[in-house]
């Protein structure tokens, strides 16, 4: 870290910064993972259709607000952790390693479910595009083609490069803005209706539970802190980028949801009829046909980018856990030439294919029961992760404020924690309503129970590790650099050399 008294130009810092990411790149990386077009065209119309409530725009704004509050403490904490990895490393720092492992075991199925759910959406969208051009294929064939592409790219570890993502994302945002403008300019009945933004709706438990669906649209912002090692100035760049990665999708999704409902008189009915074609059908009367066709193609690429991003996050989680010896060692080894974590990538692909085949054989609806249900289940997992992370931030700063001000270290984290607790409780209670199942259906409690079991398993696993492999246990959540070579390829180092995980003294 740079000292304040400098003698000459800082050659090293400049040399490092040249090759590193600035705020826009990190934001693109985070937001592209959340794929705003996928959320707007896929999720929002599905939420309107499945939940049948018109409070969607409000829900997105409130979710963005809560997550902004959460980000304040989250970013403050990231300044004090070396090699800040994904959420679970924050949790293991703030709440202890056992809870950290439990969180990791929740994160894995959550992200896996998200990715598999998106495969269903990809299949449906590709099917409808092909059908429009006169080719009739089953959604299953389209999904499997998407699956195959992701599986191959995953093994080759081809991350869509920052530039490709940036171009796609910019075009996506542009087209969303055009659609929004068109829809807002032609409100139903000639008058804009702001009823869907009425905050009174928040008093109903169903609307609070819908927050989980909205939060599923923000998952990408976890990815920004993963890049802290790659950022020009880890302290500033990541903080700003994370805030942008929350605000940008929040505003876009909220405005779009509002535009949809104001353009269509009966948004719920329209959503049920048109499903993912909703927005396209709404704007078709007002824009040239080419613009709609471009929208369809971008929708498909956006879903694909999101699938790949989630595939990458699952494998990255497995890789990190494998390196820390929480998962079997094979998950921590990468292909030497490409750096691809093969084991994790193949595992995720195999699970995804099995689920796809199950859905096809049982003839279950790919849009409602694969895409909507899986992403709701995944969203619940991510919400649990965020909730635990917000608790970790509170716990972390409770021990020592580390020269952060009261707002960042105390008030914002506590508020975020309370709000997320509220949302989580409402979600667990109201999950059945979100999935539109009967009161006596096992799906009312199934997903919550699975996550609870995963968490318990994680805690048990951590306890076993503490007893049998204390070296590896000490390295949990410390990232690849925090505890150098806890149990590396060299076996136990003869002189375990521990690097302090707390860099408060550097953070001035």
């Amino acid at each position, binding site marked *: *870290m*740079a*000292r304040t008294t*400098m*003698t*000459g130009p*800082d*050659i*090293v*810092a400049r*040399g*490092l910064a040249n*090759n590193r990411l600035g705020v826009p790149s990190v934001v693109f990386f985070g937001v592209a993972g959340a794929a705003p077009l996928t959320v707007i065209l896929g999720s929002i119309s599905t939420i309107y259709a499945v939940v049948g409530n018109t409070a969607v725009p409000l829900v997105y704004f409130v979710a963005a607000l809560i997550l902004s509050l959460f980000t304040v403490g989250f970013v403050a904490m990231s300044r004090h952790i070396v*090699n800040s990895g994904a959420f679970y490393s924050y949790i293991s720092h703030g709440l202890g390693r056992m809870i950290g492992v439990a969180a990791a075991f929740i994160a894995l199925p959550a992200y896996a479910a998200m990715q598999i759910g998106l495969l269903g959406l990809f299949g449906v969208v590709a099917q409808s595009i092909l059908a429009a051009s006169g080719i009739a294929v089953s959604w299953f064939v389209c999904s499997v083609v998407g699956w195959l592409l992701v599986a191959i790219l995953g093994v080759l*570890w081809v*991350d869509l490069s920052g530039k490709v993502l940036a171009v796609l994302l910019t075009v996506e945002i542009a087209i969303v803005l055009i659609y929004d403008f068109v829809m807002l300019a032609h409100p139903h009945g000639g008058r804009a209706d702001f009823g869907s933004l009425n905050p009174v709706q928040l008093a109903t438990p169903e609307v609070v539970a819908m927050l989980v669906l909205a939060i599923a649209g923000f998952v990408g912002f976890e990815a920004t802190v*993963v*890049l802290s*090692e*790659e950022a020009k100035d880890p302290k500033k760049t990541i903080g700003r980028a994370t805030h942008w990665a929350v605000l940008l999708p929040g505003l876009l999704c909220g405005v779009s949801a509002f535009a949809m409902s104001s353009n269509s008189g009966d948004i719920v009915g329209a959503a049920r009829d048109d499903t993912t074609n909703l927005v396209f059908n709404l704007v078709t009367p007002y824009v040239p046909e080419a613009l709609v066709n471009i929208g369809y193609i971008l929708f498909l690429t956006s879903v694909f980018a999101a699938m790949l991003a989630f595939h*990458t996050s699952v494998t*990255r989680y497995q*890789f*990190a856990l494998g*390196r820390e010896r929480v998962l079997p060692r094979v998950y921590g080894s*990468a292909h*030497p*030439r*490409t*750096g691809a*974590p093969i084991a994790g990538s193949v595992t995720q692909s195999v699970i995804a294919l099995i689920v796809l085949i199950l859905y096809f054989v049982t003839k279950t609806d790919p849009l409602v029961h694969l895409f909507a249900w899986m992403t709701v289940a995944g969203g619940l997992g991510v919400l649990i992760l965020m909730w635990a992370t917000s608790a970790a931030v509170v716990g972390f700063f409770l021990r020592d404020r580390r020269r952060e001000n009261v707002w960042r270290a105390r008030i914002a984290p506590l508020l975020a924690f309370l709000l997320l607790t509220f949302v989580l409780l409402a979600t667990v209670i109201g999950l059945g309503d979100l999935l539109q199942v009967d009161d006596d259906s096992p799906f009312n409690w199934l997903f919550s129970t699975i996550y609870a079991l995963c968490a318990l398993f994680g805690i048990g696993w951590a306890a076993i590790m503490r007893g049998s492999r204390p070296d590896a246990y000490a390295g949990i959540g410390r*990232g*690849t*650099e925090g505890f*150098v*070579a806890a149990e*590396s*390829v*060299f*076996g*136990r*180092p*003869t*002189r375990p*050399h521990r*690097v302090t995980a707390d860099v408060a003294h550097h953070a001035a």
Partner: protein
Amino acid sequence: MLANSYYLIAHDDRTGRTRLHPRATGLGLAAGLLGELMLFGRLRAMTGDLYVVSHEPPGDSLCHTLLDLLVAQPQHKEIRTWLAYLSQDAADQVGERLLRAGVVEPVTKRKLLSAQTLYMPVNPDQRNAAAWESIRLAEALGRRRSMNLSDRVLVALVVATGLTRYVFFSPQQQRDCMQAMPGILSSLPDDLVQLVQYTEAAVGSALAAGRR
């Protein structure tokens, strides 16, 4: 020279391409250069930080340049910072040093839009010398011959960056190598142990980020 040997092991002797992810190769070479300064007794490592202990110029020009840089930038001490910084152009720096030593020759490969200069062994003598680097290590380890300090660090760096299977071809050799590792590591001075451990960690981080 540590970094020279590492370079020859880390690059394919026929195509000149790096055998590892380019960032991993860069980190291994950076560690090789810092390791040379440690072997020369100019540099020490303590709790993850580097300290220059002697300003006396080393005999090699690249080492000399690096030592000057370390002296000129005292605000940066962390091993990981220096590994990250040096890894960016270590391949070219060491490649040019090998060129000056006559071990490799520059070969320009053109792709569609870009041209890349690779430093690779061209004639049979150069190829033999390049291949000898890995054979030498495998032989010494297989016959349990005692290795000098530089070679022990080299083996540790090879294993830390993931080049093991390019030096030890058979699974039996690889198992032997893994068994010998703790002994080799405990025979190294603490400074070099830290260097190796930080290199391994940095390679892991670079691969996890998945950027080129």
